Structure formats: structure tokens, C-alpha cells
């Protein structure tokens, strides 16, 4: 027996597997499959509520589907676009993209530097062909004439002389198509990277800002109603600025549809620096150096003054959240630190006071606590009073927009007004059963602001625009080649033949070919 053949190339197995997988991954078919997967994977995010978009709807989903919701939560159902499986798809897609376009970039550079190849033997086999015509000039001149015509049309042109006295002119055009295509695909990478960095280094916060110098806020996490910082941002990194709302104007159509919103603010951008007046509207955010302030919405804040049984007064300005488009708004005024006996200075937790209220800017003449117009034509406040333990000490985060319903249910907090809410107009006061008094002083407008910093927004935009331009070049471009062959004619003059090859779908090629050949032949049409 002959010596055993060398063992199968084991060490190469892993290598070839790797190489084959890479080839698979970077094939256009795989890219297609991954694109498809990406589209399918995006669907659940429009069906299920997303925490990043509307957290309150996620909470509602939990109450509606208590069994299903935790399972969906586990697989990222409420944060589809941040889930590992969604990321896996787009990261694979972009790996494939890199693996695909880098070699193409190399090839393209090479193609840009190579001269157009010489004419094929049989021009008549090409999709476009112009039959032999006689010319008066000799081949060298004829070739120069054809070449200059092609150069005028911005073809890359090469003139060759063959040993037998024949000349050929080769020309190629349309490299912009591939250039555009590469720009497009690289721009997609830029956009992805930009979006990623924007997520890491950006932050945002939402805040209700009530009109008045006493209601301003400064840019820090604790002063936002809701905020989120990118993974690479620290609370201490937030730039300093303070804002206060000096005026808010809302204009409405007679139907109650909003027409315009305008906010006037004062901004302080340096500690103890001057306050500067600025103005912004819905589509024109307030652009600060490292944050943009957007006007998202507005509403009314109610100013309540409570006088307790010892005669002490407290004033609160509480934003009431609109519950419909006509600004029927609801909110609460909580007074936990009232009815404190000045002698003992001891607080009786059962003497805390809270008000639930509905505010309507224009009260329905037919009665009822709903608004019929969003501006304050006939404002009224409907209050229900509660006394007892508000439950604020228990460490229960609770909401600033509603009373603790648990305390009401377990009787710790008791309703002390009648069956129907007390109706108050601005300036009116209401004396409760224990002789204490609440006054509805006035309303103030508030603006709902979104403050946001996205360091890469410009990069992403630039990427998108370059991508679009590349796409247009790519879809509109046509790569094509043209050849002339000019051979000497017996006696004097020459014979000219031409052929053309579109390398991509190009319906207008026949026409272009005809024009070029016609021009190269000259006005006298060749034949002497």
C-alpha cells in the first residue's frame, strides 16, 4: 500500500468555514434577507406600545394584559428598537455592508485608473453597431476626430494604433454610477454611526414651565419632570442654563382649533449672568449652545391660596393637565404642611388638606365641568376638598397630578365637601366645614418643554443628504462603452466602424450612440 495520503487539511477546515461564512454574509442575497428581516422586526414596535415613545401606554398595557405583558417585556417587546435582536439584525446588515462595499471601493479605484479596453474583434455583435462607412481622411485623423468628439462628451478615451495601420478608439463613461452607489452605502454607515453616538452622548428632559419669575428652572436632572441621559452622559455634564417663562400666547380659530403658540422666555446661560429675553414657537425651537428647547404643548396652572385654622396662608401654583382639546384640565392642590399649631409646632397628619379640581377655560353654558373653548372666555374651577393623611410621608412617589387614591379608599383621607364639586371663578373663595378657606386667585399659562441635546444630528443629516445624492447618481447613471475601428482604405481615406455596449440597463443608449457616431462622422456624413 502506498503511504497514507496526508491527513485531510483539518486546520484549514475552520478557516474555510470562516471564509465561506464571510462570503455568504457579504453576498447581496444575504443583504437582501437581512433587509427583509429588519423590516419585519420593525413591525412589533408599531403594534405594541413603546416605553421610549409613550410610557403611559405601556403601563396601560400592563393593566390590560397582566399575564402577557411581563413575557413581552422579557423579549424586549416594549423597547423593540433597543432590543438585542433588533440590534443583531442591523449590526449583521452593516457588517455585511462593510464587507461588501470595501472590496467594491477598491475595485472601483482600480477601474478608475485602468484605461478603457481595446475594441472587440467583431463590433457587429455588440448591442449597438454602426456599419462601415468610408471617409476621406486617413485613419489617424479619423481616430483623432472620433476621440475628440468622445472627449467633448466627457468619455474616458484611449486611442490605439495597431501594427496593420488600423486605429481603434475606446471610450467609457458612467463611473459616477458606481461612485454614487458607494457614496450611498457609505452614507448609510455614517448615519448608523451618527445615530449611535447621538444616543450615547445625547440627553433630554421634559418639563412643565409655568409663567412667572418664581417658577423658573435650571438645567439639571432633578428639575425635570422626566429625563434621560445617554449612557456616556453624567448628570454633572449637563450645561448650565436657567429659563423662566415671561409670557405665553395662544391664538385660536373660532372653532377652537389652535392657530399659533408663542413663548417668551428669559434665559440665563452663566451662573449669575444676565437674563436675556428670547422668543420661540412650535416649529422654531429655542436653540442654545448645547441644547434645544422645544415647545410641545401648553395648559393652565391654577393659583390656590389656603388659609388654615390658625390663620396661616399658603399659596400654590399647580399646573392642571389638559384632558381634551378644549382644555378641560385636571389637577390637584396638596397642602401637607398646614394646620400646624404655632404653639406646639407639631403637625397633625390628619389635618392635611388636598383639593381635586377640574379647570375649564370656558365653561359650558349648559352646565357641567367641560370646556367649550380653549381660551379663557369664562373660566371656572370645580373643586373637591379632602382632609386627612395625604400619604406623602410614606415614601410613595405618587403623582403630583392626582391624590393618593389608596388613602381615599382606606379612609385616611376623607372628602369634606358636598356631593357636587364647588364651583369657583377667579378671585372667589370657599370656606370649608372647619372654617378654613381656599381662594382661587388666578390662572397662569404653562408651556410643556422638551429640552434636548443631540451632538450628532448634523452629522446624521449630512450623511442622509450625501446618501440621497449618491442614490440619485446611482439610479440615474449608466455605465457604457463605445469603440471605433478605423482601417485604411485601399488608395486613400479610411473605413470607420463603431460599436456600443451599455453595461447597465439604459434605454436611451441607442439614441446617444447614434448621435455620437453621427458627430464623429462629421457633417458631410463620411463617404466622399
Amino acid at each position, binding site marked *: 500500500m502506498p503511504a497514507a495520503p496526508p491527513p485531510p487539511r483539518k486546520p484549514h477546515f475552520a478557516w474555510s468555514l470562516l471564509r465561506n461564512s464571510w462570503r455568504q454574509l457579504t453576498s447581496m442575497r444575504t443583504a437582501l434577507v437581512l433587509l427583509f428581516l429588519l423590516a419585519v422586526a*420593525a413591525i412589533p414596535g408599531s403594534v405594541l406600545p413603546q416605553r421610549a415613545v409613550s410610557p403611559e401606554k405601556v403601563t396601560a398595557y400592563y393593566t390590560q394584559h397582566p399575564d402577557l405583558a411581563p413575557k413581552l417585556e422579557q423579549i424586549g417587546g416594549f423597547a423593540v428598537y433597543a432590543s438585542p435582536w433588533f440590534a443583531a439584525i442591523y449590526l449583521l446588515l452593516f457588517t455585511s455592508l462593510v464587507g461588501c462595499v470595501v472590496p467594491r471601493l477598491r475595485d472601483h479605484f482600480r477601474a478608475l485608473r485602468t484605461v478603457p479596453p481595446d475594441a472587440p474583434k467583431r463590433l457587429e455583435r455588440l448591442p449597438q453597431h454602426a456599419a462601415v462607412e468610408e471617409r476621406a481622411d486617413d485613419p489617424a485623423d479619423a481616430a483623432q476626430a472620433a476621440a475628440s468628439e468622445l472627449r467633448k462628451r466627457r468619455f474616458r478615451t484611449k486611442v490605439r494604433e495597431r501594427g496593420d495601420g488600423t486605429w481603434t478608439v475606446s471610450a467609457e463613461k458612467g463611473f459616477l454610477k458606481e461612485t454614487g452607489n458607494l457614496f450611498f452605502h457609505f452614507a448609510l454607515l455614517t448615519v448608523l454611526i451618527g445615530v449611535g453616538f447621538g444616543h450615547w452622548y445625547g440627553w433630554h428632559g421634559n418639563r412643565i414651565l409655568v409663567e412667572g419669575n418664581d417658577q423658573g428652572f435650571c438645567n439639571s436632572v432633578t428639575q425635570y419632570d422626566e429625563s434621560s441621559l445617554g449612557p456616556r452622559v453624567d448628570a454633572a455634564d449637563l450645561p448650565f442654563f436657567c429659563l423662566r417663562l415671561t409670557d405665553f400666547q395662544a391664538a385660536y380659530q373660532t372653532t377652537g*382649533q389652535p*392657530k399659533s403658540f408663542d413663548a417668551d422666555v428669559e434665559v440665563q446661560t452663566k451662573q449669575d449672568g444676565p437674563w436675556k429675553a428670547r422668543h420661540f414657537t412650535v416649529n422654531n425651537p429655542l436653540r442654545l449652545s448645547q441644547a434645544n428647547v422645544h415647545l410641545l404643548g401648553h395648559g393652565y396652572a391654577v393659583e390656590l391660596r389656603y388659609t388654615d385654622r390658625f390663620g396661616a396662608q399658603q399659596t400654590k401654583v399647580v399646573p392642571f393637565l389638559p384632558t381634551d382639546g378644549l382644555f378641560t384640565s385636571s389637577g390637584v392642590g396638596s397642602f401637607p404642611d398646614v394646620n400646624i399649631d404655632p404653639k406646639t409646632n407639631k403637625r397633625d397628619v390628619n389635618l392635611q388638606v388636598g383639593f381635586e379640581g377640574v379647570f375649564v377655560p370656558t365653561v359650558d353654558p349648559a352646565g357641567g365641568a367641560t370646556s367649550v373653548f380653549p381660551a379663557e372666555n369664562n373660566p371656572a374651577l370645580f373643586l373637591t376638598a379632602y382632609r386627612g393623611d395625604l400619604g406623602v410621608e410614606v415614601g410613595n412617589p405618587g403623582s403630583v397630578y392626582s391624590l393618593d387614591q389608596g388613602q381615599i379608599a382606606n379612609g385616611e383621607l376623607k372628602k369634606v365637601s358636598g356631593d357636587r364639586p364647588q364651583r369657583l371663578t377667579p378671585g372667589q373663595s370657599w370656606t370649608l366645614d372647619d372654617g378654613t378657606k381656599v381662594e382661587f386667585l388666578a390662572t397662569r399659562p404653562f408651556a410643556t418643554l422638551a429640552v434636548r441635546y443631540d451632538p450628532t444630528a448634523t452629522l446624521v443629516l449630512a450623511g442622509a443628504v450625501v446618501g*440621497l445624492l449618491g442614490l440619485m447618481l446611482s*439610479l440615474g447613471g449608466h455605465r457604457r462603452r463605445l469603440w471605433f475601428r478605423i482601417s485604411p482604405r485601399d488608395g486613400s481615406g479610411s473605413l470607420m466602424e463603431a460599436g456600443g455596449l451599455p453595461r*447597465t440597463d439604459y434605454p436611451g*443608449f441607442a439614441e446617444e450612440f447614434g448621435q455620437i457616431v453621427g458627430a464623429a462622422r462629421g457633417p458631410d456624413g463620411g463617404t466622399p
Partner: protein
Amino acid sequence: MAELSNQLMAVTVLSYLAAMVLYAAEYAFGNKSHIGRAAQRPARQLVGAGAPVPLDDPLPAAEEPAPKRDRGVLLGRIAVGFNWLAFALHLGTVVTRGIAADRMPWGNMYEFTLTVTLVGSAVWLGVLTRKPELRHLGLFAALALVMLLGADGLIAYAPVGPLVPALNSYWFIIHVSTIILASGIFLIGAVPAAMFLVRAGYDEGKRRFPYSLGAKVPEAALLERLTFRLHAFAFPLFTFGALIAGPIWAEASWGRYWGWDPKEVWAFISWIVYASYLHARATPSVKRTVATWIAILGFATMLMNLFGVNLFFSGLHSYANAGG
């Protein structure tokens, strides 16, 4: 004015319907019409994938010796006449609607669809003018318009109303108008796409119902090219409208350029699917029928975004609410 617009809308649908019936009549009676001949043209250009298929080739002209009097051609001409009439009425509907609302007529889903179909109709008539031999697609183009307009009037109708302030921005106008243009072209692109699939099936010998329609539609390669050109034209427009102008406006108005709002999600999905179509068409190993199916799927996602998202999901884009 709003009332006039509504009446015009009803007449518009009826005219498209009339055009459709006439196109259908031509289809049924016009056996030996130019369309039949165009359909029977040998597929000589089909030499190898990627080979040029000169769409601009002069096809047999419509006026070629009509054997005796061709009822089909006559019916076809009347159909085109009705098609133009319907377009004029359609334009009137949109313009009066805009005058009634005193703004661009695309503030809600009803108006948006009304304008998209108008663009679709214009694109179709443009294609028809340049390539009369494609007339037989008229039946299917009119069918698509009638169905969309009918659905629009029945489920999406909303009385004239003003825009909410967030929509008062020129980026909004740019954003919506480019998306409308792109959608209208995609809409008309879906017609040759569907008919290409039918015709390709017919050419393979399938004779069951949808494929039997393939007997008289234009040649497969012609339909496929038209499909590609319409999509290749609409795709950059859609990219600009939905993925550039939209985010620019959203940034100014809501503070973030992209927020995965349901409408944004579906625009993203449509974009990916149409990109897949162009990609698939450029991939040599993918058959043209498969690629074309992807284009049809793309249109289905556009419809989903237009009707489905507005009706089933709520989001910031709720200005597009059905029924106001």
C-alpha cells in the same frame, strides 16, 4: 366650496369608473387591436439579464392599418377621454378643497389620499401619452384609482378643518408634498408590477384567473422596465420626503428627528422594502418576478401606513386621523 368639492369628488369617482368600464370593454372586444399586437411582439430584446430593453423603441403605432373598423380602438380612445375628464374633475376636487380650507389640501388622511391619487392619475396619463401602446394598463390603473378613492371617501372622509400649529411650517409642506409625489408614483408603479407578474405567469403557460388577464397586456419585459423606472424615480423622492424632510421638521417641531412613532415605523418599513426591491433587481441571482413581488409588498406597506396606521394606532402623527 367644501360642498362643491364633495360633489366633484363623487363625479370624479364615477368618471374613473366609466373610464374603467370602457377600458374593460376595449379589453374584451379589442382582440385585434394594437394592444393585441403589442402583446404578441416577440420578446426579442430579452437577450440575457441586464441587456438593454429599449423602452423608447418605437412600437407598432396605434394608427397602423386598422383592419376595417376596430371597435376596440374606438372604445379605448373613449376610455382615455374619460380618463382625462376624470383627472380634470379630480384636480377640481383637490383645488376646491384647498380653497375651502384656505391651505394646502393635505391636512388629513382624506385630503392626503385625494392628492396621492391625483398624482397617480397624472403620472399614469403622462406614461400613457408617451407610450400609447401601454393603454391596456388603463383598466388596472383606473381600477386602482377607483378603489383608493372609494375607500378614501367611505372610510377617511373628514370635513374641512384648519391645521394644527405644528403643521404650519414650510418643512411640513416640503415633507408632505414629496411624500405625496412619491406615493402617487409608487401607486402607479404597482400597476405594471402586478401586471408583469400576471404576464410572466401567463408566459409560463399558466391560464388560471389572474394569469388569464395576461393574454392582452403588454409584453413582460416592457412592464418590468416601466415598473423599475417608476420605482427608481419615486424612491429618491420618498427618501427625501420621509427620511430627510420629515426628520428635519420633526426635529424643529417635536425636538427629535426620529422617534419610532407608528407612522415613522411604517415609513421606515416601506423604505426598507422598496430598497430591497431595487437591491433585488440589481442582484443577478434574484429572479425579476421575485424582485417585483417585493415592489408589490412595498406598496402594501404604503397602504398600511396610509390607512392601517391611521385607523389602528395613535401617535404624534394623529393629525392624519380618519374622520378628523
